[in-house]
């Protein structure tokens, strides 16, 4: 979607290596989110941010860390990738908390494969 980009779009990495996924927005939205999507589980929230340097855990945060040093960038890091982290990762942004008629805007996703 316009205004939000994820990089890389695809990545294959080896077990035990660190991986960083980037989400970049040009909308100046306050809220940013990282979700993972797996068959049979829908989308599950990993971490979210409600401002620069303000982050909190979602329901599946183990094995992941995030950083937000600038409004426009939200980084997701897998410190030591495992095969269970093979997934499609989506970043989302919202001006408010997504519950005031605006909803979330999602990126196109990053397909990560850990071998």
């Amino acid at each position, binding site marked *: *979607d316009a205004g939000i980009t994820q990089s890389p779009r695809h990545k294959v990495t080896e077990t035990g290596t660190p991986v960083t996924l980037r989400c970049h927005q040009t909308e100046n939205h306050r*809220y940013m*989110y990282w*979700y993972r999507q797996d068959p*049979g*589980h*829908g*989308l*599950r*929230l990993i971490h*979210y941010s*409600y401002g620069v340097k303000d982050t*909190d855990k*979602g*329901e599946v945060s183990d094995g992941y860390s995030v950083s937000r040093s600038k409004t426009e960038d939200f980084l997701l890091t897998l410190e030591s990738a495992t095969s269970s982290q093979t997934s499609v990762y*989506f970043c*989302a942004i919202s001006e408010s*908390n*997504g*519950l*005031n*008629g*605006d*909803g*979330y*805007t*999602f*990126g*196109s*996703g990053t397909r990560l494969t850990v071998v």
Partner: protein
Amino acid sequence: LAKTTQPISIDSYEGQEVNITCSHNNIATNDYITWYQQFPSQGPRFIIQGYKTKVTNEVASLFIPADRKSSTLSLPRVSLSDTAVYYCLVGQSNFGNEKLTFGTGTRLTIIP
């Protein structure tokens, strides 16, 4: 957070009206109901959001009964391009409740 229950899948023919019902029995007073659409290999897309009664936009209508324990997304005269997964979410519209859960959604398949 209120848990939601949706049908796993729905099949319909082109030109028909499709209704997808979401059950949320433990919805809280301040919870809003939001629906998203997701096509394969894309991120979800916001469709519509409401609190009570009926909301309509250029894409869909959302019907919410007085007890708010369920909601129905209505798609008028569907086409093949409406084939997608539809998610119902329930959450509060106030700072601090950013942990929205999407669930597994309803897979809508439109048949020519």
